[in-house]
């Protein structure tokens, strides 16, 4: 049973435009959310996080929005750069494990 879903397996965006990656979760008790970026054959790299007491967190080009009532979060990257091309995972911090979403492959083209 997939507790964290990223419904878009892939996304293609032009350089300089905004990339929006979406994530839905099932359990309203979850309260800490993280986004990771992953290149092939490397470990996931932490990008940004948000706790359930907030609805927005911003760090440079990355902003995460949380809509608790909809059990939905999104990652905005603006402006998108070719180096952002990677797989992005929405991850929920459980008590003793990290619950991964299904991933979205982002491709930023010139």
């Amino acid at each position, binding site marked *: 049973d997939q507790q964290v879903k990223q419904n878009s397996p892939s996304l293609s965006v032009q350089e300089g435009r905004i990339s929006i990656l979406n994530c839905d979760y099932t359990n309203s008790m979850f309260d800490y959310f993280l986004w990771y970026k992953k290149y092939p054959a*490397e*470990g*996931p790299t*932490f990008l940004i996080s948000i706790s359930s007491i907030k609805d927005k967190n911003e760090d440079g080009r990355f902003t995460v929005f949380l809509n608790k009532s909809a059990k939905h979060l999104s990652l905005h990257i603006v402006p998108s750069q070719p180096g952002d091309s990677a797989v992005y995972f929405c*991850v929920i*911090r459980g008590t003793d494990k*990290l619950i*991964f979403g*299904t991933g979205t492959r982002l491709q930023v083209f010139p």
Partner: protein
Amino acid sequence: AAGVIQSPRHLIKEKRETATLKCYPIPRHDTVYWYQQGPGQDPQFLISFYEKMQSDKGSIPDRFSAQQFSDYHSELNMSSLELGDSALYFCASSLRQGPLEAFFGQGTRLTVV
């Protein structure tokens, strides 16, 4: 800043052999997680440790075992290796209390031939 260190980075083993993967967490992190990512798959949770005690268990085969030592490093022991065990194995570390971000190592690529 110190990151999560995994060793070895690459490992080739034959079927039915044994492999040991090591993970050195970020200093002062008290929680370690292990994940397996097969080709074309999402990372799958194997097991976690908090303060040297197993804290949660995922889809870890009985042929695998793991532990966390007094210096907080962790080892994943894999016996009777099968071709299907070929994957990228990641560990991550975090604090149970305080900043809740978890940081991953670069992974160990295990190839079973």
